[in-house]
């Protein structure tokens, strides 16, 4: 028995390049904290207590672009790439294309692209007015090239596995994502600038805002969820049919959702209607996925009590369903009259990006991290729990607060009160949002501290085994 275990372990160790996972996840966590701090800094401007007034490179508008673009490329791309380096070789059984040269080149390239973007936006006054694509247009070809390399890197093992047998669910999501992402980034950053303008550009930009979430973040995150959840619970997904339904529903309806960001705009109405229809339809696909995950949990719910990574994943999944359910309503033209342009949308965005995808990657990283360093568990159970609760309560508080603020602003604007009234009415909500932000940042710092301690302190698993 012992020999078999060792043999498997050796095989798995050779499959996964631990250094690349460590580097990407570590940088992802670093950028997560940075973008959270940037968001907090921007929120202070809304509160009217910005600490650096009159300093050009810390102008709140520029800081806000670092918050959004940094979340996309610094935090999420790093985190997901790190976790893909862990998950893809494991569920396919093949190594990635090339870890030694391409892997390191991609790692350095990504960090360089992010740093150049930060310098360009803060100091050079170079930005792009595409939300989530604030990266200056001349850095976008680099990002597209990077994403093509990324497709080769992770596509190779998935293709090899597919030649042997039908792919596991994660493989569908990740294979489709590898094709979508470069297309989406190319479309969103170049078409509105060079091949269209005005309403046509608006249609593409809104498709980009949504597709970077829907065709990069969502499929890679669900792909990883379909890998990590059954592995942690040591049992298969409840229904393969629902997995199929969820994937093909997402693949067909998600790309068409984008225009719902600009309802009541000068974009032709048929495009707006198709987006509304597709958005309501995707809710059914999402619900089928959620049923599948909840039924998988059935009978094992007590695992959530002591397994923090799994709890992160299920908390995120519930937030995901709330976000999508909310979306099915507020995407209608009636809701849009009130909530468009308000803080409601900000609350929605934070619930999905922090509450769902943030929580998921934190959960997955917390599962992977001790294993990378040969430790049995995370350094401190207390810090682990503390971070989870601070993050969860913080993001719920922010979501509820901003949703309420959005309603106040929306109805105030319809009521034709002086503009400054809506600012004054929203201020208490903005103060509260900053407090929720402090909670979330504290949680993140606690999480990062735990990470650092796990990597550097505590006994390794091997040492313990040797002593036993």
């Amino acid at each position, binding site marked *: 028995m012992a020999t078999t275990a060792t043999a498997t372990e050796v095989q798995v160790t050779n499959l996964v390049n631990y250094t690349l996972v460590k580097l990407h996840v570590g940088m992802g966590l670093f950028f997560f904290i940075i973008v959270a701090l940037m968001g907090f800094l921007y929120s202070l401007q809304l509160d009217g207590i910005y600490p650096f*007034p009159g300093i050009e490179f810390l102008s709140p508008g520029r800081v806000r672009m670092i918050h959004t673009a940094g979340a996309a490329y610094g935090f999420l791309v790093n985190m997901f790439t790190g976790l893909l380096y862990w998950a893809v070789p494991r569920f396919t059984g093949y190594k990635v294309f090339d870890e030694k040269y391409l892997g390191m080149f991609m790692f350095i390239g990504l960090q360089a692209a992010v740093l150049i973007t930060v310098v360009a936006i803060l100091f050079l*006054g170079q930005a792009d007015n595409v939300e989530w694509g604030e990266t200056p247009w001349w850095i976008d070809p680099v990002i597209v090239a990077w994403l093509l390399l990324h497709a080769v890197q992770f596509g190779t093992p998935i293709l090899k596995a597919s030649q042997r047998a039908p792919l596991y669910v994660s*493989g*569908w999501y990740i294979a489709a994502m590898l094709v979508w992402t470069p297309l989406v980034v190319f479309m969103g950053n170049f078409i509105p600038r060079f091949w269209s303008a*005005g*309403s046509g550009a608006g249609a593409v930009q809104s498709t980009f805002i949504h597709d970077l979430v829907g065709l990069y973040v969502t499929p890679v995150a669900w792909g990883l969820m379909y890998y990590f959840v059954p592995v942690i619970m040591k049992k298969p997904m409840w229904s393969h049919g629902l997995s199929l339904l969820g994937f093909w529903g997402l693949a067909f309806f998600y790309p068409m959702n984008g225009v719902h960001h600009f309802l*009541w*705009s000068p974009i032709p109405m048929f495009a707006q209607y198709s987006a509304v229809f597709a958005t309501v339809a995707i809710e059914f696909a999402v619900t089928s996925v959620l049923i599948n995950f909840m039924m998988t949990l059935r009978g094992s719910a007590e695992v959530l009590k002591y397994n923090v990574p799994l709890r992160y994943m299920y908390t995120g999944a519930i937030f995901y369903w709330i976000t999508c359910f909310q979306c099915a309503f507020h995407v209608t033209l009636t809701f849009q009259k009130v909530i468009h*342009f308000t803080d409601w949308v900000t609350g929605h965005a934070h619930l999905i990006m922090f509450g769902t995808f943030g929580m998921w990657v934190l959960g997955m990283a917390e599962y992977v991290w001790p294993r990378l360093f040969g430790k049995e568990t995370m350094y401190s159970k207390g810090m682990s729990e503390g971070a989870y609760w601070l993050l969860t309560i913080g993001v719920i508080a922010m979501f509820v607060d901003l949703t309420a603020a959005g309603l106040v602003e929306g109805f105030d604007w319809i*009521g034709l009160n002086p503009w400054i009234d809506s600012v004054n009415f929203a201020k208490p909500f903005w103060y509260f949002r900053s407090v929720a932000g402090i909670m979330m940042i504290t949680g993140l710092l606690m999480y990062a501290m735990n990470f650092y301690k796990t990597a550097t302190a505590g006994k390794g698993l091997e040492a313990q085994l040797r002593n036993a």
Partner: protein
Amino acid sequence: MGKMERFPFVVLVAGLGFFLFADFVSWALPMFVLKDIPMKKVEDLAAEAKAKNTSAWADFQRLAMYYPEQFKKYYGEVNEKSFAKALKIGHHWYVAEGCWNCHSQMIRPVSNETLRFGIPGVSNTVSYPSEYQNELQAPVLWGTKRIGPDLIREAAVHNVDWQVAHLYNPQTTSPGSNMPGYPWYFEKDKNGNIVPNERGIGLLTYIMWLGSWEVKPTKEWALKQ
């Protein structure tokens, strides 16, 4: 079912097929509908402002009159070329400064927005496709969030004097506002007065251009020399 779970099928059908179909619906078809609207370059916009003698053209002349030293230094004479240059610089910094994070540029036909942001006495106050069909709206600047008010009819709302004071320190003109001041768009002239610099004049020209095509030039807008 086995075929559906293979790499080529997923990549070709979901990855490429569905994506291209969605792009067809939400990009190609709208583009087809909008294809007859002529695309304007910045130079065309400048020529139009001059030919129609819009409020933006008058405000550009005002800036030249108020700040002769800076205007001469950075823009030279008042003509179409310098107006186009100012629009370009103003648009660049409007984007780079993230103004569009808090100010939208779109009036919707609902929620009393035409009453709030529209121009009194002008019928067509809702945003319409052709006013965005130009180089300064690629990518489009509709924005997704309003902390401050919409700006697409700004030319009709405030005059350039107000804009100068507001850009330097918003609280002087709008008490309680949480907009930051932008002192780096200003410099000192030879008399020690704080005046807009190159970027500042550009930004003011750009802001006063927004919606100027909908402002009917009246005697109030005409420049009194």
